[in-house]
């Protein structure tokens, strides 16, 4: 089979899985906090989708971002609340690059099989999506380590088996594995627009055995930057999936809703707005696909950062515009809780805010690409 055959098969199975999503469940998670359904997660694992970015040496499929994007686009379309991108991209990439840790290999195996839901808890300050500022500290203690600090904005914390935490060890960046439930590790939650929750992780004198140090030293910065970039790109694929679905819903409504004796989609002002949003959809799709193919082919760190910022800025902005316009197209019904449009509006908001919103990515693009060229 060729690579294209593989992609086509994957696309088919994703389409099947995401057909007729259970939106009643999505609507309810704000109340029942059932954003992580272990049975659903098991299914994702059984399909092999959690293994896509896990290296073959660790029991995974060792495929590329292109394949992960196919899955994410489908899950975004279906508004699947499980933290696919957070675990199967962000954490998978982090762990895969912790090459000298045998625990990381073990965790990756568990991640691929669905048994270990590893969640990255890197970020401390808003706007710092690459987690450059770190105040959490680790000290060597009784043959292991002791950690103190606070992390926030961890999507998927509700189902976490443990956290990949960044802390300073002798003033140098280091990554640790903190199993959920470790004494001194407490998780708090902040409700999000779409019913999911940010986890905040507070570490108060958390003791860890020596092998829970996953990586340390100068390589940590590069490991985090790469994993965050890849996750931001795949979160953008989720956004593209959901924005396409939303645009379909708007177009369907424009074709069927009758006012003044005509389908409202016959009115030129609405047609032109729909076209302008279609252009944004196509720009987002084109940037995403071109950028992901380039990343799979290999980019250096600064080209990768510029590419990812282009992707996230465009896809998130397009998703915000398209979902918000969908409310207007639908009129008052679009503003009701019963209407599915609201679910897409809210997921677009949380995915946009996570791992750098459009403004943050435009700023990073300017800092990496524009100022350097100008200098």
């Amino acid at each position, binding site marked *: 089979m060729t690579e294209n055959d593989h992609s086509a098969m994957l696309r088919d199975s994703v389409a099947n899985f995401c057909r007729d999503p259970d939106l009643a469940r999505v609507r309810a998670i704000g109340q029942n906090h059932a954003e992580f359904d272990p049975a659903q997660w098991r299914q994702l694992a059984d399909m092999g989708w959690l293994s896509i970015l896990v290296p073959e040496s660790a029991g995974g499929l060792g495929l590329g971002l292109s394949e992960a994007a196919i899955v994410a686009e489908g899950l975004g379309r279906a508004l699947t609340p499980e933290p696919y991108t957070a675990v199967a991209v962000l954490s998978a990439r982090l762990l895969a690059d912790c090459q000298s840790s045998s625990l990381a290999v073990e965790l990756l195996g568990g991640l691929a099989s669905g048994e270990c839901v590893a969640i990255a808890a890197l970020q401390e300050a808003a706007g710092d999506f690459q987690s450059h500022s770190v105040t959490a500290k680790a000290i060597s203690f009784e043959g292991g380590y002791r950690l103190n600090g606070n992390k926030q904005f961890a999507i998927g914390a509700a189902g976490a088996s443990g956290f990949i935490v960044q802390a300073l060890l002798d003033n140098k960046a280091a990554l640790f594995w903190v199993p959920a439930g470790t004494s001194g590790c407490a998780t708090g939650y902040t409700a999000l627009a779409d019913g999911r929750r940010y986890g905040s992780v507070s570490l108060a004198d958390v003791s860890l055995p020596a092998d829970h140090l996953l990586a340390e030293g100068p390589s940590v910065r590069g490991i985090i930057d790469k994993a965050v970039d890849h996750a931001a790109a795949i979160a953008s694929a989720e956004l593209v999936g959901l924005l396409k679905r939303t645009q379909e819903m708007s177009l369907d409504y424009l*074709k069927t809703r009758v006012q003044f004796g005509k389908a409202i989609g016959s009115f030129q002002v609405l047609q032109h707005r729909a*076209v302008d949003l279609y*252009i944004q959809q196509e720009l987002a799709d084109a940037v995403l696909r071109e950028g992901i193919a380039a990343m799979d082919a290999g980019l250096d760190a600064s080209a990768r950062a510029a590419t990812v910022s282009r992707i996230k800025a465009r896809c998130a902005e397009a998703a915000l515009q398209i979902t918000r316009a969908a409310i207007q197209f639908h009129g008052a019904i679009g503003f009701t809780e019963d209407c599915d449009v609201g679910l897409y509006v809210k997921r677009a908001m949380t995915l946009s805010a996570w791992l750098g919103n459009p403004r943050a990515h*435009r700023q990073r693009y*300017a800092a990496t690409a524009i100022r350097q060229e*100008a200098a």
Partner: protein
Amino acid sequence: MTDYNTLSDDAFRAEARAFFEAGFPAEYKFLPRRMRWAECRDWYLALSKKGWIAPNWPKEHGGMGLSPSKLLIYMEEYERAGAGRMPDQGLTMVGPTLIRFGNDEQRKRYLPKIIAGDAIWCQGYSEPNAGSDLASLRTEAVLDGNDYVINGSKIWTSMAHDATNIYVLARTDKQAKKKQEGISFLLVDMKTPGITLRTIRNIAGHEEFCQVFFDNVRTPKENLVGELHKGWTIAKGLLGFERLNIGSPRRPLQALEKLEALAAARHLFDDAGFVERFTQLKLDLLDLGSLYGRYVDKVRRGEALGQDVSILKVWSMDTYQRLSELLIEAGDEFGAVEGDTTVEGETVDLISPFYNSRPGTIYGGSNEIQRNILAKYVLNLPS
């Protein structure tokens, strides 16, 4: 004759780049207006001599026979070298139309003159009361003996004052049920008695377009192209590739390059507000490049372009205008200076991209008409 399609893209690009850069007269590079025939005649003949004047025509008619992907390279390099647009209606419209819809006699009579630079064509489409609604045109042609007799007027006819010939859409059947029916495509010699012309000065002060009046103008019936009353089909036949060309990022990219140079000279990259707006526009343009690349790949694979190609034209020209507007703003007081001015040692013309970008959303089907087309044929919205 060389088959350029057998060259690699890189090899062809290198040859085109070298030829255009060295061959195009330096004094006309990046001219902020259309070239007059007297200015570009030598260049036209040089291209003709090399066999490069008609890149899109088949070789049997004196063209290069380039594949669409090679043709895009040709156009990209042409613009990159700052080579100006010549009176090219014969090359881009009349030639392809006659090759596809004309007869042997017409091809033999008209095509060699276009290649040789002996005939310069202009386009008689729009009328004072038929712009976006082109099909409502009222210039009429009536058969009288062996001639069609034409009465009416055409407007926005670019470079008509340099043209030797004009192709005209004229109404030949006023009783037709639909206004798109009953229109015919006629070829006319500009020296025919009854043709008068006035030039129209545009907002930039250049005389590029004209109004052409027809008062009992006779053209032999052999100059009817295709079937009688079927001219509308011919007129619509060649639009897809034109939209891909207008939708290329090359033109807005020239405005961006000017803006970057000006911003660096004036230290505007230290201004966070400017950087935010500049970045947004730069990403709008880069993302257009990604989208354009997708259509180029389609062309390269030999797939037909659908109506959705119109999104390129809308976004490209819209982005071009927004860039040209920021260029003026970035000049502060200099943004009001007409023509070349010196800012921090850089010679710049801050207003000409603004002028050049305005008609892009109007000609070739206005951006609003493109949106109508997209709504109807791509989004399938009801009418």
